[in-house]
């Protein structure tokens, strides 16, 4: 009996923190790709993963168990008096969503700029590999 209790406790502990562990792993995967990979497009992919890990972290701190999505259920469309029953605990925290929604679109715009830079570098040096570019730069 005690064993089942322990296992349940363990599962709840893992479930409570597993999300954060995943974000740390994703963050490290992205960081590793940015530091150690040789190819520029690989670095850009790593940057995207890094960015989404941060976004995931922000969104997950707004999550509330057994709450509804942050769109208020309303009886009348106009809502002068119908809002007496709205309780904040019933709805998921919308603030991180707002901050991160814009971050995603800005992220794709910066992805475009990064890819444009990669194209420019390829035109200049004929390669996307970092060490070959360094070699060409030294020999100049």
């Amino acid at each position, binding site marked *: 009996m005690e064993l089942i209790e322990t296992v349940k406790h363990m599962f709840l502990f893992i479930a409570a923190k597993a999300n954060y562990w995943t974000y740390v792993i994703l963050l490290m995967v992205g960081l590793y790709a940015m530091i150690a990979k040789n190819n520029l497009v690989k670095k850009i992919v790593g940057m995207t993963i890094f960015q989404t890990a941060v976004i995931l972290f922000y969104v997950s701190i707004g999550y509330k168990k057994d709450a509804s999505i942050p*769109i208020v259920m309303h009886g009348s469309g106009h809502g002068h008096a119908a809002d007496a029953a*709205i309780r904040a605990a019933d709805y998921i925290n919308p603030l991180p969503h707002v901050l991160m929604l814009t971050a995603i679109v*800005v992220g794709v715009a910066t992805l475009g*700029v990064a890819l444009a830079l990669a*194209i420019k570098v390829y035109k200049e040096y004929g390669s996307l590999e970092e060490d070959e570019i360094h070699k060409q730069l030294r020999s100049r």
Partner: protein
Amino acid sequence: MKILGKITILLCGGLLLFFTSDFPDFGDANSPASTHLSPYFIEHTLEDTAVPNVVTSVLADYRGYDTMFETTVILTAGLACFLLLKIPTKEVKQRYYRHEPTGVTLRIEGDRYPDKSAVFTRIDSTWVPSDMIINFTCRILISFIQIFALYVVAHGHHSPGGGFQGGVLLGASVILFAISGNLRAAIKQFGEKTAALFGAAGVFIYVGTAALCLALGENFLNYSALAPLLGTDRIMARSHGILSVEIGVAVAVMAVMIWIYYNLSSAGKQDEGL
């Protein structure tokens, strides 16, 4: 470099994993992030703005400054892409033409290109015959993607959606047109300069709505000031002001997505590409 990278990520990851135990549990309703500011937004969104979707009301009203500068950032990204890759069209040394009745491909060098001709059509250097099935399906779908995108922009108040999503959908419809046909047809329909102008116009719609409030004697971005113009009460005026701002965001995002795609897919030539 690889060893150094591995050491770095092991150290960083170990530290971060160690400190996750101090974070609030996943799904904790009483975490610090959910207790200070956001209850106000949830409880007052209907009486302040008459917008049930809290995300939209916070995005365009409570935190309007933030979104305004995010839109500017997106426009700047488009501009950066353009300036990085820009090539004068004069540098394109040769062009390919196809003689339609016989199907012969000609390569013409120099500056004197036939501009408009009945039998010669301009083609890419990597020309492939267009596929009937893909062309037809895309032609049908583009209209529906656009009507769906406009629906998403207009109904951001009541369901998920809004300017950013609708803008990306609109941009995707034009990108689909460029992929299914060829890039030059898309540029002829919705040119590069038009894209730049639309991007600026989107930001202008946003700032203009905000400045109109200033001109009507209230604070910047306080849409209640629009009530006498729209002929509604002050709360519905906020709702309509949010809609106008969302339209601005949608126009800016659409134009910038298309602009970046043109630049990337033609590597700056704005002429031929993927």
